[in-house]
């Protein structure tokens, strides 16, 4: 199967508020798919409809070829880290998670083993017998992630998995998600665009309930043909023309706001390199550009691949939050 999640013409409103409007996209198998959007864009609503917590007004969602209106057919195959869902505070962690696994048809011993493994993944094994009410916010978040990883789900929905986590825990969760990609398709929503760019291979961007962009991260960030080069001084027009004549270079631009002072007296100037998409040996082209720059007496400081997802995100969403 090429696509494990297929969303077609999905619409949902809450009273007069149109939360989702005719959203359609597909999620490729074994991808880490990022769902982006400003606050109130409809990400959580979309997750909730995929998991059948909310009923769509129009459209349909298929997960693993099954219409999610028959969500019970996906028991054990689809899991979710929901946003704002609370565990029962006065019941020990172990008991709650074991109960989930008993529902999945495990014996009590199997369930306990799986739960402890899952808790170990998020560093909560030693807290297994504690009540949820006694955990810190970050620990509860890790517990929520542990329940999403229980069993062997084929599709995992993670609604802002690293929100509220310290940097080390967030890194641990990102590593875990990458490992799980081998066995599952993962859809992640996050406000952290660097995280999404690092983690995901496909993204969809929602704005005001509508899909504004969808595709692979490489396509969206033009990572296959656009580079940004940071230099020690600005280039003259003649120097730009000279570099543009290198075989495989489509254009080289120096934006008007290209100069940037990063403090401590060192300044950086950026140029945007646009290479031919069909150019096979991009490394060779880049090496030629860098040699040319050095020959001009300019020191290259940094080379980044593609535009940042953040710049694309701000461009398509207009840099606005849906809720001011």
């Amino acid at each position, binding site marked *: 199967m090429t696509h494990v999640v297929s969303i077609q013409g999905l619409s949902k409103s809450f009273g007069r508020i149109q939360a989702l409007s005719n959203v359609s996209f597909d999620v490729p198998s074994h991808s880490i798919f990022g769902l982006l959007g400003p606050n109130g864009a409809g990400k959580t609503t979309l997750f*909730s409809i995929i*998991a*059948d*917590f*909310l*009923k769509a007004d129009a459209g349909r969602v298929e997960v693993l070829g099954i219409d999610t209106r*028959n*969500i*019970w057919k*996906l*028991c*054990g195959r*689809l*899991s*979710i880290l*929901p946003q*704002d*869902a*609370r*565990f*029962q505070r*006065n*019941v020990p962690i172990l008991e709650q998670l074991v*109960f*989930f696994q*008993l*529902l*999945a048809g495990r014996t009590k011993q199997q369930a306990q083993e799986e739960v402890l493994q899952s808790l170990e993944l998020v560093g909560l094994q030693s807290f297994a017998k504690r009540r949820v009410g006694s955990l810190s916010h970050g620990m509860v978040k890790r517990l929520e992630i542990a*329940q999403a990883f229980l069993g062997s789900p084929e599709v995992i929905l993670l609604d802002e998995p690293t929100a509220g986590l310290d940097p080390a825990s967030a890194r641990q969760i990102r590593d875990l998600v990458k490992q799980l990609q081998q066995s599952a398709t993962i859809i992640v929503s996050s406000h952290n665009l660097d995280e999404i760019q690092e983690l995901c291979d496909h993204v969809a961007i929602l704005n005001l309930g509508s899909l504004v962009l969808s595709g692979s991260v490489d396509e969206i960030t033009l990572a296959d043909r656009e580079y940004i080069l940071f230099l020690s001084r600005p280039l003259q027009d003649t120097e730009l023309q000279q570099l543009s004549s290198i075989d495989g270079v489509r254009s080289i631009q120096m934006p008007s706001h290209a100069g940037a002072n990063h403090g401590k007296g060192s300044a950086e100037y950026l140029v945007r390199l646009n290479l031919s998409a069909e150019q096979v040996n991009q490394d060779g082209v880049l090496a030629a550009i860098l040699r040319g720059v050095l020959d001009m007496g300019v020191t290259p400081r940094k080379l980044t691949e593609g535009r940042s997802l953040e710049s694309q995100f701000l461009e398509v969403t207009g840099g606005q939050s849906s809720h001011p």
Partner: protein
Amino acid sequence: MKLKTITIGHVRLISLYWSRYAVRSGSGLVYLMIALIFGLSMAHILIMPVEQLIARQKREMGNADPQFIKKTIIDIGRPVIQFVFGQKTLEEIGQESMARQRSFRDKDGGPEDAAAGPNKDADIDPWITFLLEKRPALLSAIFMLLIFGMPFAISFLGYNQVSGDIQSHGLRYLLLRTERSSIYFGRFLGTVIFSTAVMAIIVVTITFYLGMKTRIYPAGALTLWALHGFLALSILMVPYIAVCSLISASVDSPFLSLVLAKVVIAGVLLMGLLGSIYWKPAKYLLYALPWGWQSNLLHPEPARCLLAALGCLVYAGFFLFLGYYHFERRDL
């Protein structure tokens, strides 16, 4: 509407987990306390005069006369049962109780004086006769009071079957692990199990206390009637729990669910009773819930008893169906 799918194993797991959780969450404990306080208080109010009479007889005559005690109990029990049947008001019962106490005080409560009481009413209802004379009267009176009062208390247990977890979104951890039907019916069943356990505790405590303190009824008769009363109370709670399930599945706030459950259960009774004073057909409102016929669970005719039990189950099924219909379609 078709019931999409239900997994019996999940219903069993959820019901057991939920009945345990009812204790932990506090709502079960609150209900247990309220039910115990209500049940034991009612029992105490009815048993205490009998205990005092036995003690006085022993003090004055050396031992208690079981026949006289039984007749006194019938005197105490009759107005209680008449009240539950709607034959007497609380005011009339209060006046009779005062008169009885005066009689005991003035005439020193000799066996001959009191014995004249019970058979005064020649036209006594055969149902009341059955409850007071064919069955352990004290237990009958206590059961009648419990049948009347327990539906008010049950909402403390049933109000939060799903509404709290809808509000906190806690249900979302379950929704991808089992069907909505299994959650809904599992929690209903868990609540019924807990309620039945509480009824068992109350009935066993009252029966044991009554048996040990008064020693006027044969153990076998007392046990059999206690079993009947326990079954009647347990079955009676089922439709009221189902009403709570329906309300709990319809609102997001546990507090609102509790208030609505109280208003609906008490409101139907009040509107039926008060409304019928001004407009006779209003009494049929009592049949919106089992209020109108629930006393039949202690009827002398087994067929009427069974019909009442069946009625409880039919009502429960209706309310459950409505609740499930809504729960299956709503946003969670």
